[in-house]
């Protein structure tokens, strides 16, 4: 009966109910977006890392896990030893640097990866292949310097700041045009076999920027991390979890931002529901007193008002989720346009946890918003209220 009355009461002041539902929907949409934003980039990053399958990354001690500035000497030998460790499926050095690539339409700097053929998944050629056994150029660079598959380009290690002339230069044939995981917006990237890049840079001792490690199914990445740290005190190893912790520390301001906006949206929803229900209860004190007189218990009257708050939340929630999901796209696009953000990553990532969090918070807020009017309804004196209504 209380459910029946709650629905009827909300329909009774339909325009007011529609307005409060609209308000809670907007607040709820913001809440959902903030739930998606809080940890969204981490989830997106974790998911991208997980897709590649390289669950441990080894770098020189003291460098950031995603940094490519420092060189790790003897990387090939270290990688071979790691690969021989039980539970490791693959360990391969990766060299990252910047080179200059010149084609018919001009010259451009390019982020460059030197990869061994067994490293798969980091690039995706137009043919569908995901290994590197020649020069692979990303689409952005290919357009910039006007090359396509089969063309020859000049690849230089440096440009003299005095003369503007390139340093050590090698002619290379473009084997394929491809897409690279973690490319930034408008980033120009190439990949070539690791040995070719080491030769071009004149590096001795098989150095690399980092080593990527793929564990066997069922193997514990954290135990590999511990083993590497113990075996090579000059190295740091990070599992995906460890990398995400690093990312989490670096992106904590997003979490603070989302927490503050979450609080504001909850407060708005709370005040909207509380205000409207307080007004509504104030308008029908006589009815509520009469209901109490004809046999509705105090707890049922309280439940009735709480339920009205919960119904407003329940009706608003699906709309809030839909509006939040729609709004998240342009917001995500704005944040992804920030320089230095890989194009595969997203800030607003919908997840079951974000949906559940939004639904729970809105339901609790709706019920709490109804708490004060419910308290008013519950404590009203039947006789005094009936007296006042007749005056």
């Amino acid at each position, binding site marked *: 009966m209380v459910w029946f009355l709650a629905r009827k009461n909300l329909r009774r002041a339909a325009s007011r109910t529609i307005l409060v539902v609209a308000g809670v929907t907007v607040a709820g949409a913001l809440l959902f977006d903030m739930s998606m934003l809080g940890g969204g980039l981490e989830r997106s990053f974790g998911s991208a890392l997980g897709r590649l399958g390289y669950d441990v990354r080894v770098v020189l001690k003291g460098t950031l896990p995603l940094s490519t500035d420092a060189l790790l000497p003897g990387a090939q030998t270290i990688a071979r030893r790691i690969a021989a460790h039980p539970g490791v499926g693959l360990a391969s050095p990766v060299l990252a640097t910047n080179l200059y690539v010149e084609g018919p339409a001009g010259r451009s700097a390019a982020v460059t990866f030197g990869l061994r053929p067994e490293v798969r998944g980091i690039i995706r050629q137009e043919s569908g292949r995901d290994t590197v056994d020649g020069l692979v150029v990303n689409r952005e660079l290919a357009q910039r310097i006007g090359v396509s598959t089969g063309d020859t380009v000049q690849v230089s290690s440096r440009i003299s700041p005095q003369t503007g002339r390139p340093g050590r230069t090698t002619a290379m044939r473009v084997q394929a045009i491809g897409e690279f995981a973690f490319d930034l917006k408008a980033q120009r990237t190439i990949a070539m076999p690791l040995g070719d890049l080491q030769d071009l840079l004149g590096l001795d001792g098989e150095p690399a920027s980092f080593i990527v490690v793929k564990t066997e199914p069922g193997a514990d990445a954290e135990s590999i991390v511990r083993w590497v740290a113990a075996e090579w005190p000059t190295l740091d190893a990070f599992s995906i979890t460890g990398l995400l912790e690093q990312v989490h520390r670096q992106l904590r301001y997003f979490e603070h931002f989302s927490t503050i906006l979450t609080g504001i949206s909850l407060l708005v929803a709370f005040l909207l529901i509380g205000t409207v229900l307080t007004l509504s209860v104030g308008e029908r004190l006589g009815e509520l007193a009469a209901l109490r*007189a004809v046999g509705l*218990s105090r707890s049922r009257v309280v439940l009735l008002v709480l339920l009205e708050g919960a119904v407003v939340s329940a009706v608003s929630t699906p709309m809030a989720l839909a509006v939040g999901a729609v709004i998240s796209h342009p917001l995500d696009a704005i944040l992804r346009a920030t320089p230095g953000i890989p194009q595969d990553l997203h800030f607003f990532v919908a997840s079951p946890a974000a949906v559940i969090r939004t639904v729970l918070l809105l339901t609790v807020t709706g019920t709490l918003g109804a708490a004060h009017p419910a308290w008013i309804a519950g404590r009203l004196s039947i006789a005094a209220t009936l007296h006042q*209504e007749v005056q």
Partner: protein
Amino acid sequence: MSAPVVELRDAARLYQLDGAPVAALRGVTLRVEAGEFVAIVGPSGSGKSTLLHLMGGVDLPTSGEVRLFGDVTHRLSDAALTAVRLRRLGFVFQRFFLLPMLTAEENIILPMLEAGVPPAERARRVSELLEYVGLTHRRRHVPGQLSGGEMQRIAVARALANAPSLLLADEPTGELDQQTGQEIGRLLQRVHGAGVAVVMVTHNADIAALADRMLVLRDGRLT
């Protein structure tokens, strides 16, 4: 002698008004037997509604006692008093207090829903009650579509929904014209005729004359 449905023993009700006690009822002793029709008359402010509220257990005496179906009201919990009102009492108010968003039949069904009456039984009883108050054709109308007299008849039907032994009516004709008031008075007489004790507060002498017994309340005392 049968047990009274409601009995007041030296019941008084004091209110605090700006810190000073104001007596709405002073030492009222009254006994209403099962099936009796009692009218309580008196001028405005004489304590009629307060008396009715004490009898219905929606208010408690500050001294003396009220026995409702044998139980002393101030010794019953709020839940127990609510249960008595739901199952054994019917209330009719001057301003009807029908829920405006519910149809006539939904208003009548409310107490039955709260009492957990099965759906089939509810449907049968609401039809009987609508027929009893002569408003079968108005069952799907909301209060805004009903006249004052019709609303009061629906309120009487609601009060009878759980077949109470006692019906308390607080100025049931106060918002109605003379003729409609007479109709409501006759309806309450029929309710009494069906064996329900009726206590009606009114300042309308013609309506009060329909009762078996008329009591006069002045300055919080029965005279």
